[in-house]
């Protein structure tokens, strides 16, 4: 007979998913926890949506900062102040 494994040990709660999600996305979550998290996502529609939105959020932040800051020109007064301080 195999060792009995409680059904609770096979998955995690929504609250625990909150704790683990950042590590899950950067690949640093230990294998056992990763499996538990993936099992939870399979079963929990709200967390599945949450994870998809969370991933997208990381991408949105990157993309917005890339697109919002085009070529920038420093004010002439700043350039002159820098040059003065460098030449002292």
């Amino acid at each position, binding site marked *: 007979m195999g060792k009995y494994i409680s059904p609770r040990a096979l998955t995690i709660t*929504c609250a625990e998913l909150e704790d683990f999600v*950042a590590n899950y996305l950067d690949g640093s979550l230990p294998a056992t926890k990763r499996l538990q998290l993936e099992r939870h996502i399979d079963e929990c529609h709200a967390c599945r949506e949450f994870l998809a939105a969370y991933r997208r959020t990381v991408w949105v932040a990157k993309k917005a900062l*890339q697109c919002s800051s085009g070529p920038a020109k420093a*004010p002439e007064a*700043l350039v002159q*102040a820098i040059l003065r301080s460098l030449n002292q």
Partner: protein
Amino acid sequence: VLGDNAKRTEIPLVQQLRSGDRSATERFVREHAGWMLVLAQRYVKDAALAEDCVQEAFLQAFRNIGEFQGRSALKSWLYRIVVNAALMKLRSRHCAIERPFDDLLPEIDRDRCRTDTSWVEMAAPDAILERKQVSQLVAAKLMELPDCYRIVLLLRDIEGLSTEETASVLATTEGAVKVRLHRARAAFKVLVEPVLRQYV
């Protein structure tokens, strides 16, 4: 490590800067001060403080130009210097009043289940974010996050530092970085979703 093209253009430039060539120095300052100012402003959220950061970053860069080994591009080297200058400024500023934050975090009930049903995937196609007006509104939402969360998000998700590097830069623990990063992403999502919804 610098590629061949960069070596051809950057190594002679570095030699000119080291020798105190005024014309090369001015070209160098004009080429880099603009993006450095934008970067510093993301961290300190204040135009005058950001200008101070850029000025201090240039002073530091020129003090240490003799140690520049060419292992990275000059721009990456300057990037790190200006981010460090901005973080130093933030450390010395303790007076910022920041918006309450808990209402932006996901809701979990007593049974440890998610109750927040607003977590649906954001419709944010590339084309929408490529519109400058939209990307600027979204970037402005990032600036609404409290400093200690916004900085972690910038360092981890935008600058690409590892958790360990971020913890070291901020003189905190990796655990604290992970918690703040998660809360920052979650709050940013709540702040930014209504903006994107207007344009989809």
